[in-house]
């Protein structure tokens, strides 16, 4: 079934293959050829696969989106005026802008970046840093193969490359803004982030589209956090309301590394995030997520934390607010290898349903092969607590306002975890836009 559709993409591939970056690199050509073969054989993931059972992406197969070639001047670029861009761009960051799957030097701003730090488009990086990429590209996704990863590897047109050398502490965050300006296109980007030993960096991935365009984003980000390094990665997904989004983030943490991920999944008609972390000895990871669904949105979050070695800890909390006929999915797997004694892991997923037709599917999974570990998980799916509503009413707040206040408070707990002020405010704006109830005040939050 899916192979037929996949072959349509595969046929198209021949026409664009020669335009993809890294043509001169034999290892990359092999990697792409291998990925193409896998994709041709299996197509996009199907709900028959356990990890995709709640999310059906067959609509993407039917649609046949086209890549935007780098050579064609971007016809719709005029819609990306600086003002519009500013509504997503954060102040006081180094900024990388990818438009329709291609790095835009014009809109990017890397002034003052320390010389030892590399931040550039992936196509440039394949020319300038091929050895480094040969080592890293594809390494973090080794064990998590599915159709979207193969598709991304074969098709990617550009992306973000970041290399922060050992002991370098980046003072400002880097924001990479993935913008899609057209309908019927796809933006396939491959991103590699390397934070060497003892280095510290904060990176924000923002995804946005113009108007109500129907397009596909498929971004794969591979992250390598070196020994005793510290990395915070934020994802702000506010794609257009008819967009399809796949964003996979695959992280390898070395010994003593610390990694925090914040996933704000707000946009798109159908959106799926993978956040898969491999933990070495005594490393720490924190995964925070907030998904807001309205209308008929389908938002899927798939997390996997793999404790490979002893003494590592993981903390995960995902919250969903689902209204109208929206559907939220949370699949959280924690795997503790036989060798990973003294693992300390907590996973939590809480869902708030605002309408009778909204749906939350939640599936926490613990797979523990070690015998001396502390692992816990909790899940809730429910509506607003009537006791809380009465308490607020008894404090002079009318019922509707009380409901709004509690809904926002529920979501805001995750927004408040953002440690970058400008991003915090942007995310808050996005939360407010998505729940435009009358009388909602910013001061609540």
């Amino acid at each position: 079934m899916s192979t037929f559709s996949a072959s349509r993409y595969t046929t198209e591939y021949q026409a664009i293959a020669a335009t993809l970056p890294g043509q001169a690199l034999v290892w990359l050509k092999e990697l792409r050829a291998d990925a193409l073969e896998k994709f041709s054989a299996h197509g996009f993931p199907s709900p028959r696969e356990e990890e995709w059972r709640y999310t059906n992406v067959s609509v993407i197969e039917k649609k046949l989106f086209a890549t935007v070639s780098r050579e064609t001047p971007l016809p719709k670029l005029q819609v990306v005026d600086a003002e519009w861009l500013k509504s997503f761009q954060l102040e006081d960051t180094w900024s990388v802008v990818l438009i329709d799957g291609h790095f835009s030097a014009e809109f990017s701003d890397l002034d003052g970046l320390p010389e030892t730090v590399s931040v550039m488009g992936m196509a440039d990086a394949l020319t300038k840093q091929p050895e480094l990429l040969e080592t890293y590209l594809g390494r973090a996704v080794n064990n998590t193969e599915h159709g979207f990863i193969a598709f991304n590897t074969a098709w990617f047109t550009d992306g973000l490359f970041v290399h922060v050398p050992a002991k370098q502490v980046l003072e400002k965050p880097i924001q990479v803004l993935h913008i899609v300006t057209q309908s019927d296109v796809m933006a396939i980007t491959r991103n590699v982030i390397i934070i060497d030993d003892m280095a510290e960096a904060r990176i924000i991935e923002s995804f946005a589209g113009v108007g109500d365009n129907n397009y596909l984003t498929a971004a794969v980000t591979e992250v390598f956090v070196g020994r005793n390094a510290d990395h915070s990665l934020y994802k702000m997904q506010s794609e257009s309301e008819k967009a399809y989004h796949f964003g996979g983030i695959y992280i390898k943490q070395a010994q003593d590394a610390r990694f925090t991920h914040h996933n704000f999944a707000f946009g798109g008609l159908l959106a799926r995030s993978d956040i898969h972390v491999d933990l070495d000895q005594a490393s720490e990871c924190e995964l925070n997520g907030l998904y807001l669904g309205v209308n008929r949105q389908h938002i899927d979050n798939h997390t996997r934390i793999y404790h490979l070695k002893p003494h590592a800890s993981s903390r995960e909390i995902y919250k969903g607010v689902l209204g109208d006929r929206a559907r939220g999915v949370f699949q959280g797997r924690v795997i503790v290898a036989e060798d990973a004694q003294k693992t300390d892991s907590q996973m939590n997923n809480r869902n708030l349903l605002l309408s009778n037709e909204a749906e939350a599917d939640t599936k926490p999974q613990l797979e523990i092969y070690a015998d001396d570990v502390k692992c816990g998980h909790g899940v809730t799916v429910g509506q607003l607590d009537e006791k809380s509503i009465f308490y607020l009413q008894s404090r002079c707040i009318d019922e509707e306002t009380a409901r709004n206040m509690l809904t926002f408070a529920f979501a805001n707990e995750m927004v408040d975890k953002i440690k970058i002020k400008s991003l915090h405010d942007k995310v808050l704006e996005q939360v407010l836009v998505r729940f435009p109830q009358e009388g909602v005040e910013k001061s609540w939050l």
Partner: protein
Amino acid sequence: MLTIKNLHVNVGDKPILKGINLQINPGEIHAIMGPNGSGKSTLAHILSGKSGYTVTAGSVAYNNKDLIDMAPEIRAREGVFLAFQYPVEIPGVSNIYLLKAALNAIRKHQGLSEVDAMDFLTLVKGKVRLLEMDEKFLYRAVNEGFSGGEKKRNEILQMAILEPRLCILDETDSGLDIDALKIVSEGVNSLRSPDRSFVMVTHYQRLLDYIKPDFVHVLANGQIVKSGGPELALELEEKGYSWLESDQVAA
């Protein structure tokens, strides 16, 4: 201020209050005492507007208005305040925000403009000191992670700031150690005024050592079986409730 006449209240089909009569005048403190299951908390809840209760007969007039018909938030804006037996944790809503929202709702109800930010802060900080609370509590989520004593103190803080006309204290002393009880009582006593009334629902006489009531009523099996002055509380401490319950059975 508050006139309760022949009040009958059911939970489901079960009668809980069976004809309560009570007159509370401005400035008075009334203690409602009684054994578990006597209907004390139901009385507190019905006055504050909690759902789940059906008034089957009788009336409650508050400043000559029908209280039962008012939504809980309207009662609150009209000056009825319930200090909860079990204050609810509201994660994500800060104490200070709730205080401000509540105060402004009352002011709006009274046709006044919103409170000035500086005046508000001065007011709040003064009351925080009165209740010997840490200012940090203001910026924490409402009751979240508070100890039992901190929650009760927080209720009194809200009361002190909102300046209600009718204060209903539901088992405020339960779960408090003696130091916390003293602080809470001082907070309540500082609010006593000729135009403010209190209804203290309590199982224990101890609270009345610190907040002296004008009247004590004993509730048993959904009715007030005895009313008297503060000395009645002492008598109850000595004899327990059983003599009154059996009195009623005999009657």
